C-alpha cells in the first residue's frame, strides 16, 4: 500500500472524461511526474488530489486515510500552481507565513520557519518585496517556499517551470529536485516537457487522453516505451517499416538487425531505433547506406538526417570536437541488433 494512492479516479465534464480510471500508488518521499500532451488530464488529476476538483468516481487515500471528499483546507497538501497564484497584496514573507497563520502557529515560531523556508529557496533577501516586484523565477521559488513551509505530506506542482525561459528552466529543474531531496517531501509534478520529467523524477507517469499509458522509471520508460505514442513523445524515435525475417527487418532487400519477439517470418514489422543508438561509418561499412540530407549542431550533440533506401533516418552523435560529416556526404549507418526493436505495425497507435 502506497503513501498516496489513487484508485480508479475518474472525472467527467458532461460526457467527456477529462480523467478516466487513473490508478497510481506513490511511495513516501518519491518524486513522480505526470507527463502528457496538453489537455490529457494532468491538471485535473492534480486538482482532484488537491481537493479543488471533485472526482466523479474513484478513491484517494493518503497515509491510509480516505481523503476523496475532504475539503482542500483540511488536506494540508502543498500546491504550486502554474500561475503561482501568489497573494499580490502581501509581501513575500507574508505570503509564506499565510499557511502557518492558518495553522495558528505562534509568531516567533512562524517567523523562524518563514525565514528557514526563504533560505531554502534562496530568497531571504527579498522577504519584504511584493510579488509584482519579483522576476518569474523568484515568484516560482516563493510559491515553492509557501507550499513547503507548512510541512505538507505531499507537494503538488502544476507545470512549475513552464513560465520560465529556457536557461532558467534548466537551472530550476536541478534546484527544485535538490530542494525536494533535501526536504524529502513526496512530490507529484505535472509537466508536458519530457526532458523535465525524465531529469527530475523517480518515476514518470505518461498520460494520454485522460488515461495512464505507462508508469516507469525515466530510464526504463525511455528504453522500453510501451506504445509508439510514448516512444515519440519521450525522446525521438526512428520507425522503419518492412517485413520480419529471422534476425531483423527486411527493407528494400536488406535485412536490418534488430530484436523482435513473437513475430512470424514474413509478417509486416516496424523497426524502432533511437537516433543516438546509431553510429556513423564510411559508406558500405554499416548496416544501411545513405546520404546526409540535413545537419544540425546542438552544442553537445550533432543531429543528422540521413536519406536511405528505408526512409529518412535521424542520427544523433555526441560532439567529440570534430565534424563527423557534411551535407551530401555518403555515409554508412551502423547499429547493434540489441539497440533496435521490431514490432507489429499498429495503425491505431501510430504517431
Amino acid at each position, binding site marked *: 500500500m502506497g503513501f498516496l494512492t489513487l484508485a480508479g479516479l475518474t472525472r467527467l465534464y458532461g460526457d467527456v472524461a477529462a480523467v478516466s480510471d487513473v490508478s497510481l500508488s506513490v511511495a513516501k518521499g518519491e518524486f513522480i511526474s505526470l507527463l502528457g500532451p496538453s489537455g490529457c488530464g494532468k491538471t485535473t488529476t492534480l486538482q482532484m488530489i488537491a481537493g479543488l476538483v471533485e472526482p466523479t468516481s474513484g478513491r484517494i487515500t493518503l497515509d491510509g486515510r480516505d481523503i476523496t471528499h475532504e475539503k482542500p*483546507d483540511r488536506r494540508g497538501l502543498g500546491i504550486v500552481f502554474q500561475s503561482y497564484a501568489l497573494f499580490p497584496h502581501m509581501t513575500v514573507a507574508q505570503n509564506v507565513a499565510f499557511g502557518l497563520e492558518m495553522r495558528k502557529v505562534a509568531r516567533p515560531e512562524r517567523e523562524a520557519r518563514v525565514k528557514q523556508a526563504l533560505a531554502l529557496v534562496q530568497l531571504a533577501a527579498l522577504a519584504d518585496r511584493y510579488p509584482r516586484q519579483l522576476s518569474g523565477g523568484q515568484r516560482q521559488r516563493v510559491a515553492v517556499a509557501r507550499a513547503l513551509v507548512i510541512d505538507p505530506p505531499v507537494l503538488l506542482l502544476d507545470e512549475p517551470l513552464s513560465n520560465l525561459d529556457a536557461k532558467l528552466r534548466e537551472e530550476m529543474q536541478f534546484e527544485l529536485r535538490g530542494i525536494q531531496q533535501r526536504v524529502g517531501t513526496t512530490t507529484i509534478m505535472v509537466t508536458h516537457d519530457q526532458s523535465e520529467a525524465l531529469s527530475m523524477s523517480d518515476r514518470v507517469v505518461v498520460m494520454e487522453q485522460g488515461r495512464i499509458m505507462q508508469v516507469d522509471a525515466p530510464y526504463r520508460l525511455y528504453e522500453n516505451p510501451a506504445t509508439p505514442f510514448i516512444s515519440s513523445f519521450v525522446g525521438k524515435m526512428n520507425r522503419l517499416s518492412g517485413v520480419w525475417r529471422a534476425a531483423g527487418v527486411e527493407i528494400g532487400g536488406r535485412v536490418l538487425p534488430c530484436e523482435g519477439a513473437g513475430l512470424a517470418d514474413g509478417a509486416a514489422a516496424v523497426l524502432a531505433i533511437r537516433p543516438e543508438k546509431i553510429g556513423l561509418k564510411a559508406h558500405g561499412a554499416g548496416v544501411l547506406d545513405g546520404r546526409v540530407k540535413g545537419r544540425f549542431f546542438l552544442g553537445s550533440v550533432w543531429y543528422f538526417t540521413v536519406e536511405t533506401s528505408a526512409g529518412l533516418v535521424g542520427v544523433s552523435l555526441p560532439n567529440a570536437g570534430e565534424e563527423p560529416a557534411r551535407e551530401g556526404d555518403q555515409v554508412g549507418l551502423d547499429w547493434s541488433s540489441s539497440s533496435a526493436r521490431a514490432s507489429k505495425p499498429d495503425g491505431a497507435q501510430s504517431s
Partner: protein
Amino acid sequence: MSSARAGTTPWLLAAPGALLFAALVIVPLALTLILSFHVYDAASGVKDETTLAHYAAILSDSYFLNIFWRTLRLAAMTTVICALIGAPEAYILSRMREPWRSVFLLAIIGPLLVSVVVRAFGWSMLLGPTGLVNEAFRALGLGTVKILYTETAIVVALVHVMLPFMVIPVWTSLQKLDPMVEAAAWTLGASRFTALRRVVLPQVTMGLLSGSLVVFGLSASAFAIPALLGGRRLKMAATLVYDEYMHELNWPLGAAIAILVLVINLIIMLAYQRVVEARFKRTLG
C-alpha cells in the same frame, strides 16, 4: 511645417471636447457662482449689488443645515448598503457559469435603461399605503406601515438605482483576479470565509472604493427620487435647490445652496480619494 502641425494638432483635436465642456459645465458653473453673490429682493428680483448674505443665511439656518445633514447621511447610508449588497453580488456573479452570468449581469445593468423617474414611480406604487408591500404586511397581520415619504423609501429606491454603479467596478476588479489565488488560500488551510476576507476582499477594495465614490456622489445629488419618494416635506439638497429656484424664485439663494453642496461633495470625495490612494499605492501599484 510638420513641427508646427505637430504643435497645433493636439490642441485642434482637444478643442471640440474642451469647448463642449466649457459651454456646458464651466460657464453655467461660473454664472451660478456669480449669481450666488447677488442681492435678492422679493419685490424687484435679482439686483446688481453683491453680498455674502445668502451664504450667511444658509450656514446659520438649521432648516438648511438639517437638509444638508440628511443629504450626506442618506447618501452615506445608500453607499454602505450598496457595498454590502453589491460586493457579494459581484462575487457570486464572477463565480457563475455562462450563460447564467450574462443573464444576471443583464438583469443588474438592465434597470439603467429605464428612466429614474419611471423607477421612482414604480417604488411609490409599491411602497404606498395601498401598495404591494403594505398589502403583504396586512396579509401577515402587521398592519399598515408608513414607508412612502420617509427616509426609508428614499434609501430603498436610491439603493436600487445605484447598485449597478457598485456591482460593475467590483466585478471588474474580480475579473482581474486569478481564481487560483483563492484556491491557493484554501489549500494553505484557509476556510472559504477566511479566504474571502484575507485574499479576495483586499484585492477588490479598489473597485469597492471607486464604486463607493460614484454611488455617494450620485446619491448626494439625486433629484428625482427624493422629489417623488420624499414628498413635499422631506427634502434633500437637489430638491431644496429646485424649490428655491422654482417656488421661492430666490435664484441667488438657490445658487448659493448649489455651490455649497458642490463644495461639500468635492471636499468629501477628494479627501476620501486621497486616503484611499495613499493606502493602496504601496501595495497594488
